[in-house]
């Protein structure tokens, strides 16, 4: 009975790829080959990686050894959106990003330090979303992600902007923002827009060839909300400000009243998708090629701040946020 059912299934669904080290290697290499959008931008010769690593794959290797080879495969991409996430054997996620592999945990920012030493009345809307008014009537908004649906932000930001509309300026803090949805970053930036400007052009993979992309799509800063805040805005960034936080920075930086303060951002702008291997592991692929308003890619580079200043681990451990203090002092 099960044999008949199995045969029927195969006929109706088609053949699946058997779980072998060779097939897992081929599947991941091909997945990046057909979907990764930045071989040119990042100057990576993907074929040569296949040639170098393929001889190291054999049917007798264990998962730990396979993990080693697959990790090496994506290391040259050095992309925050390219990583391997095993789902067995207790193997950890492997980041192709050198920065994330090296730093592991952010140490130059803590929202707890902001709350404890600068803004005890900080209001928590969500674990990733806070606001308040600093001494000197300076507004403060913190986003550590843009991950909720846009309707959530529309509802909450109306309240936040009304609460902060009489401040003399606002500090928008995205120093630990790992990203989210570009629709959210576009919407929030629109609350600070005085002038409609092009801030980003995106294209995404539309076929398996490395240069097969969709038509470029232009993103503009459109006014959002019941009013737009036009007084000075200071945007705080770090190397941990990534992905949709960076497209947010692109949008904000088109406005004359915005100054970016802190460190250069992460340098990973593209959309990312999850894919699976025949052994059930996940790997993540950047499928886009995102450019700034000038048509330049800042992948792997990040957005440099107007004013450079960073906290050390010791600053944060001692409850001091030099970057925030500097931003406050400018109002």
């Amino acid at each position, binding site marked *: 009975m099960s044999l008949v059912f199995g045969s029927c299934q195969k006929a109706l669904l088609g053949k699946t790829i058997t779980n072998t080290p060779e097939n897992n290697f081929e599947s991941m290499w091909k997945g990046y080959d057909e979907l990764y959008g930045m071989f040119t931008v990042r100057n990576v010769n993907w074929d040569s990686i296949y040639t170098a690593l393929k001889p190291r794959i054999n049917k007798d290797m264990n998962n730990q050894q396979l993990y080693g080879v697959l990790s090496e495969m994506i290391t040259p991409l050095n992309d925050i959106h390219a990583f391997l996430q095993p789902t*067995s054997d207790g193997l950890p996620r492997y980041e192709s990003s050198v920065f994330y592999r090296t730093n592991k945990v952010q140490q130059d920012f803590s929202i707890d330090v902001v709350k404890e030493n600068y803004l005890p009345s900080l209001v928590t809307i969500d674990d990733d979303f806070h606001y308040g008014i600093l001494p000197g009537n300076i507004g403060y908004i913190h986003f550590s992600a843009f991950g909720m649906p846009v309707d959530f932000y529309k509802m909450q930001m109306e309240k936040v902007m009304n609460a902060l509309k009489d401040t003399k300026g606002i500090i928008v803090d995205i120093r630990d923002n790992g990203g989210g949805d570009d629709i959210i970053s576009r919407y929030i930036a629109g609350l600070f827009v005085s002038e409609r400007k092009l801030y980003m052009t995106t294209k995404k993979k539309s076929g398996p060839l490395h240069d097969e992309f969709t038509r470029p799509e232009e993103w503009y800063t459109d006014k959002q909300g019941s009013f737009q805040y036009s007084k000075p805005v200071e945007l705080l960034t770090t190397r941990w400000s990534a992905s949709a936080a960076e497209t947010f920075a692109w949008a904000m930086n088109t406005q004359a009243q915005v100054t970016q303060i802190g460190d250069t951002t992460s340098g990973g702008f593209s959309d990312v998708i999850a894919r699976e291997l025949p052994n059930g592991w996940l790997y993540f692929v950047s499928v886009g090629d995102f450019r700034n308003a000038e048509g330049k890619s800042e992948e792997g580079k990040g957005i440099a701040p107007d004013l450079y200043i960073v906290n050390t681990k010791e600053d944060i451990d001692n409850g001091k946020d030099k970057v925030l203090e500097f931003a406050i002092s400018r109002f």
Partner: protein
Amino acid sequence: MHLRNGWANNFPQLRFNIVILRFIAYRVFYFLLSVQFYIIKILVMKRKLFLAIICLLSLASVSDAQSNSIQAGFGFQRTWMLDQQGSPLKYQTKEKAFSLGYQHFGENSMFDVDLSGGLGDFFPTGFFNRQLYDPGFNPDGSHKTDSSLMNGKIYNGSIELGYLRSLSHGYSVIDKKDLVSNSYVGASLSNQLFYTDNFTRTGWINSSSFNGEYYHRSTFNERNRFEIKILIPLFARVTRLPYHNTISSSNGDGNVKTFFKEGSRFAWFGNFQNIQLDAGYQYMINNNFGVGMHYFGQWVHYAREKPINLFQNQLLLKASFNY
């Protein structure tokens, strides 16, 4: 759309799983809300059509020499799927399913409306217990080792309106008992949606189709009723994710609208195959009430952007009210 990497605060990846789960929950909620919104919008826009259908139904239900049947069913459903756009893995489901139906039989025709849905676990075959490890780090820099199960959910629904003309009518006596048979052939309009909340967006497909339909009903000894229905889409508008498997709109459109705008294509039987079979037995307790079992099975194949093959079995316990 960016999938956040989860670096936040001092130990941001600690919150990775919770954030992802919450993100998914909100997504599903707002997706269903959006679908509901668009259905209501379509209903409002097409109110004349719907008023006409309601008038037809009302007229039909009061005419002489005609009969109506309202059915409700509940049961189980299994779906197997190989969606190469989302994953090389074969997926399967464990779903609970329901069905609501109305049939009107005239002298030479029949009209039917069916609404059905299913909801359940969605996971790759052989990987039901797959673990998502916390990608965060301990204060000493070592990897965290806690994990959670990473199964997703599948949401499946369909609606169908059909009108069929009588093809043949038969009457015979077997062992001194009456056997009445009726065959109908006609067309229907239907919409079917599969949506999953798993990481790889496997199995996202919507099809609005114009179908050819065959229906046969036999009543033996007035109490035992057998029926079979075969439905095959002839033309369809099929919506799938684009090649890059993401959704985002530069002009502020919502994800549902963008999904339908960017991913919809005209299809026909040559490139979109969907064969549906519905077979049932009903025992009439009296002239009005019946109970029975229904089997529904379907196979779907569509090749864009990458092939998806889907096979579904459903078994329902059904009750009917006939008047």
